[in-house]
């Protein structure tokens, strides 16, 4: 919402400076986005008269002018093709800063002729891009007057960002009222005498859709003369960035911005029969004033004549019945339209208009007639003609409501004491009526308040408190520390939340960097990872490659690996902890820790051989996350049924009983191929929500540590087993052979090849025995060895390698 300082002063009697006004506006919640004050920049420029123009003695294209600046006559050399004697233009003396060309004028000698200043083009004054010649002013322009003042540019333009609740401040008068209430001046009274109708309107108004349009006020004007607006009106509109069109249209725009009262002027000779406010008919269209044609539907309110829709109620007028220079008879509309329908229609058709901006916020329901009267006076004054009686259809919607304010609430909710009298004063200055006071009690009882008709946003006590605080000033509220209910704070995080952080930092320690990628991905990418149902496909995606909610984080990370490789960084380790989506409901998402590695796990180096990533890297990452998150890692089983986006032979699933805790492995080459990423890439997904929470019985104490005084001993066994036998089977069998003594089993060699029967492999285990009661004797150790061999043989059919 833009307005000029002088426009504001039409409504506000004030001595405040521009800076004071700007500061107060922001403090009132009318946030000032910018102030454009051209008068400062244009101060040196004056209206001047070219007395004579002679050809430059040494240059064909230059002229030597004598310029009357109002105070003196100066010689100026000028190259503009339109420089001639008698012209009135804009003169810049030496020393002036020229904003359009970013230079400061100096006295100069051009081709041997002295030049004292310059006649300016529009571009040099930053008025437009025009630079083909110097500015030509009308003959009656007063020589010596500051150009900014003459051109109406001397008026600072203030731009405020309006919150959607303040329809009243979409008019300059509303802004003035807030400033007056805040002590920055006095609101001037608004002339309100009605104009007596000279005849009965030949048009009637019928409202067929009273919900959509509760009140419509119309007036017929005959014999008007439409033409350019007078200078004051023209300048006001130009200053706030509106294009003046013709007096009739300009007056409606002026009232829109002045009083937040949108109007529409029909050329009455193009309206057939009269006005009908109704819902649009299926298939109906409207060629609007903006040159576009819109398809209408029955949810939209139209202003029609007896033949067709002539305007979209509260949004935009139609081209066919718009006013032109030749308009003689006018029908002027001031109406109230339903805010929700106005917003929905505007949104559906994509029309932003000054009328919609106000009507969807809700205009003053009690000012329809007064807005019409003000416009009437302007039309008669500027365009002549005569006005009919008012035609009023529907009635003023009920807006009076009585709210109560307990003055003590201002301190209780706002944290600042505002005296009762001051509260009353503020509310009255904002236009509220105090209809009753229950003045019992020390701080006074409740106030009964009727908010003004233009403040549909005030519904309850909290709103009244806000009004008092807003005008009193938020700055005046003293900052108060939040009281603490205990000396020490309790943990802010639950166990589940805390392990998310542990997971992230564990993975980062392991060399993976944390990424945060979109929760969306492209539908075809999602399909590679199991896909999502229709319910997780966005109705209005921002682009086709971000159109579904991701079923897995891996797709995004793999694509990121590809982008990094394209930049020359092929060794990639990335992880993300975030949501993956199963179904379109609030309980349909899981927190997943996912990561990928690509390129070399160990880069080329003088001391070590390079090694590409493999599934075991991903397994290690997954295990580390599970461990950090407190999963019982020793009880996990590994199965080989990972989903289809993993390499079927190089992937696994970590389960606790039937519950899937994690998946890991090489990414399927087809997936990589489709995503255009060079493999191998390995990845993992850990389902943090699936990990059981630790049981917290018995407090924080850990089980007592058992430190054996006897040394552990290691024995190695090499078994020959079928090549498809999983190592895990051997390990479990060895562990199970003597649960008391076997503390650990590791695999230190896996061999397949010569010296072994076809279809067999050798798996070498190192078994750690931990005696607890006494040192083991050789025969005892031997016996355990045999138990281990027997257990492994039973479980796998394998035998000791001889």
């Amino acid at each position, binding site marked *: 919402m833009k307005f000029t300082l002088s426009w504001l002063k039409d409504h506000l009697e004030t001595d405040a400076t521009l800076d004071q006004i700007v500061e107060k506006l922001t403090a*009132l919640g009318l946030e000032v986005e910018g102030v454009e004050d051209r008068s400062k920049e244009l101060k040196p420029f004056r209206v001047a008269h070219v007395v004579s123009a002679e050809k430059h003695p040494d240059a064909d294209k230059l002229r030597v002018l004598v310029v009357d600046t109002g105070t003196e006559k100066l010689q100026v050399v000028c190259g503009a093709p339109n420089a001639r004697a008698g012209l009135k233009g804009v003169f810049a003396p030496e020393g002036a800063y020229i904003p359009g060309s970013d230079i400061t004028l100096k006295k100069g000698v051009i081709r041997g002729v002295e030049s004292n200043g310059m006649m300016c083009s529009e571009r040099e004054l930053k008025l437009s891009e025009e630079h083909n010649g110097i500015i030509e002013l009308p003959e009656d322009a007063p020589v010596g007057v500051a150009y900014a003042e003459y051109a109406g540019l001397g008026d600072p333009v203030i731009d405020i960002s309006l919150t959607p*609740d303040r329809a009243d401040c979409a008019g300059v008068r509303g802004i003035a009222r807030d400033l007056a209430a805040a002590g920055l001046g006095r609101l001037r009274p608004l002339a309100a005498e009605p104009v007596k109708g000279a005849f009965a309107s030949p048009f009637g108004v019928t409202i067929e859709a009273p919900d959509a349009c509760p009140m419509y006020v119309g007036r017929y004007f005959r014999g008007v003369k439409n033409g350019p607006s007078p200078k004051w009106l023209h300048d006001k509109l130009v200053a706030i960035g509106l294009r003046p069109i013709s007096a009739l249209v300009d007056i409606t725009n002026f009232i829109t911005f002045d009083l937040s009262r949108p109007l529409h002027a029909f050329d009455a000779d193009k309206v057939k029969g009269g006005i009908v406010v109704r819902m649009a008919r299926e298939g109906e269209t409207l060629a609007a004033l903006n040159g576009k044609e819109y398809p209408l539907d029955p949810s939209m309110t139209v202003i029609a004549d007896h033949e067709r829709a002539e305007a979209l109620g509260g949004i935009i007028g139609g081209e066919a019945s718009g006013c032109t220079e030749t308009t003689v008879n006018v029908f002027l509309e001031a109406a109230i339209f339903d*805010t*929700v329908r106005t*917003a929905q229609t505007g949104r559906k058709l994509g029309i932003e208009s000054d009328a919609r901006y106000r009507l*969807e916020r809700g205009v003053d329901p009690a000012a329809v007639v007064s807005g019409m009267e003000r416009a009437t006076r302007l039309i008669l004054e500027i365009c002549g003609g005569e006005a009919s009686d008012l035609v009023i259809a529907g009635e003023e919607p009920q807006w009076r409501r009585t709210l109560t304010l307990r003055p003590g609430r201002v*301190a209780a*909710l*706002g*944290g*600042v004491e505002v005296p009762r009298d001051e509260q009353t004063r503020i509310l009255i200055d904002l236009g509220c009526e105090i209809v009753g006071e229950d003045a019992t009690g020390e701080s006074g009882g409740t106030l009964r308040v009727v908010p003004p008709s233009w403040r549909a946003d005030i519904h309850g006590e*909290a709103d009244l*408190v806000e009004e008092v*605080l*807003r005008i009193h000033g*938020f*700055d005046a509220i*003293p*900052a108060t*520390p*939040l009281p*603490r209910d205990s000396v020490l704070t309790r943990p*802010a*995080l*639950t166990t589940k939340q805390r392990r998310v952080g542990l997971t*992230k*930092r*564990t*993975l*980062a*320690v*392991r060399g993976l*960097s*944390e*990424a945060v990628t*979109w*929760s969306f991905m492209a539908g075809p990418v999602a399909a590679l990872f199991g896909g999502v149902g229709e*319910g*997780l*496909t*966005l*109705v*209005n995606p921002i682009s086709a490659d*971000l159109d579904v909610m991701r079923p897995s984080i891996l797709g995004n990370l793999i694509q*990121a690996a590809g*982008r990094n490789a394209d930049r020359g*960084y092929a060794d990639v*380790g*990335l992880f993300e902890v*975030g949501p993956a*989506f199963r179904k*379109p*409901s*609030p*309980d*349909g*998402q899981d927190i997943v820790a996912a990561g990928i590695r690509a390129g070399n796990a*160990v880069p080329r*180096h*003088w001391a070590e051989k390079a090694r590409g990533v493999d599934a075991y890297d991903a397994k290690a990452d997954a295990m580390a996350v599970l461990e950090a998150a407190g999963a019982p890692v020793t009880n996990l089983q590994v199965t080989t049924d990972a989903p289809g986006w993993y390499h079927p032979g190089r992937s696994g699933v970590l389960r606790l009983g039937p519950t899937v805790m994690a998946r890991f492995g090489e990414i399927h080459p087809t997936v990589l191929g489709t995503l255009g990423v060079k493999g191998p890439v390995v990845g993992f997904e850990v389902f943090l929500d699936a990990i059981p929470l630790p049981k917290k019985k018995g407090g924080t104490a850990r089980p007592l540590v058992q430190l054996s005084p006897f040394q552990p001993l290691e024995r190695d066994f090499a078994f020959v087993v079928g090549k498809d036998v999983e190592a895990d089977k051997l390990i479990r069998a060895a562990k199970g052979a003597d649960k008391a003594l076997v503390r650990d089993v590791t695999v230190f060699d896996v061999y397949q090849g010569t010296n072994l029967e076809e279809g067999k492999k050798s798996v070498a285990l190192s078994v750690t025995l931990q005696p607890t009661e006494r040192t083991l004797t050789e025969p005892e150790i031997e016996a355990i060895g045999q138990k281990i061999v027997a257990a492994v043989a039973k479980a796998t059919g394998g035998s000791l390698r001889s």
Partner: protein
Amino acid sequence: MLDALKDELLSQVNAAGDLAALEEVRVTALGKKGRITGFMKELGGLSPDERRERGQQLNALKDEIAAAIDSRKADLARAHLEARLQAERIDVTLPVRPETEGRIHPISQTIDEMVAIFAEMGFSVAEGPDVEDDFHNFTALNFPPGHPARDMHDTFYLPDAGDKKMLLRTHTSPVQVRTMLNKKPPIRIIAPGRTYRSDYDMTHTPMFHQIEGLVIDEATHMGHLKGCLIEFCRAFFDVDDLPLRFRPSFFPFTEPSAEVDIGCSRKGGELKLGNYGDWLEILGCGMVHPNVLEACGIDSTRYQGFAFGMGIERVAMLKYGIPDLRTFFEADLRWLKHYGFVPLDVPSMAQGLTR
């Protein structure tokens, strides 16, 4: 005669070039068939007086030679070690074995910092889903259907689920609703998380993060809101005298509502936070609207409180001088290495938020 033997043996000891040669000398002198041993054996044939005198001389000689051998042995061992160490010299300027350490994303780090500060003020962390329904995201938060305030949120919609309009939450405020529906006051929570709006340009991404705060009890007023946010901003930005400005604003779910600016300077195109006279908007807040309390089953005549919401990327950008919002989501390793945080740099109020 013994003196000559001593000289001879000592010179042999000193001449021994390695441990083997020295052992040979020891055997020659002190072995079973050694020369000193030989003289010892002859002692039996001497008179007692002679034997005592000779015996003492021989023992002294034996000890002296043995000591010389030990000393020589130590010298040789030292020299040997010295030589070995010289031979073992490596090029310590060679680069070490590669170790990679990952980075924590600035968003995670910033959230951890915020949690650390608000935890000190008694807040705990609440969470809610990204896929929400119209009720939790709008209706319960006092956005009337069709109200233009819904327009301010460029909402991503999912297909309707029965009579429910499903969407991606446009702010973290639905967590307020979920918290109040599940818990009786007093409530003091923060809720960081992902949020979504259909907007993509220099300063907007379709996904971003917010942190929500909510305090509900019987006495919390706007002065507390100011106190809480002033403390937070000064701790978070690490500027002790950072000025805050509370401007009236509008949000459907708070009344009164305010936007908060922090002091800054933009001189010379460089942004600096502090008491420099210029202002920068960083968050929205207000007293929870009675309609919201009632929609969540909380008696608004008894309870009141405040709420605030802040963009996490925005404050991370301000604090850490990160110029472009869009880069947060590109997973560019170079960017992560540069703007990310080492994993053991866990923010806490005790140890400091920022290294």
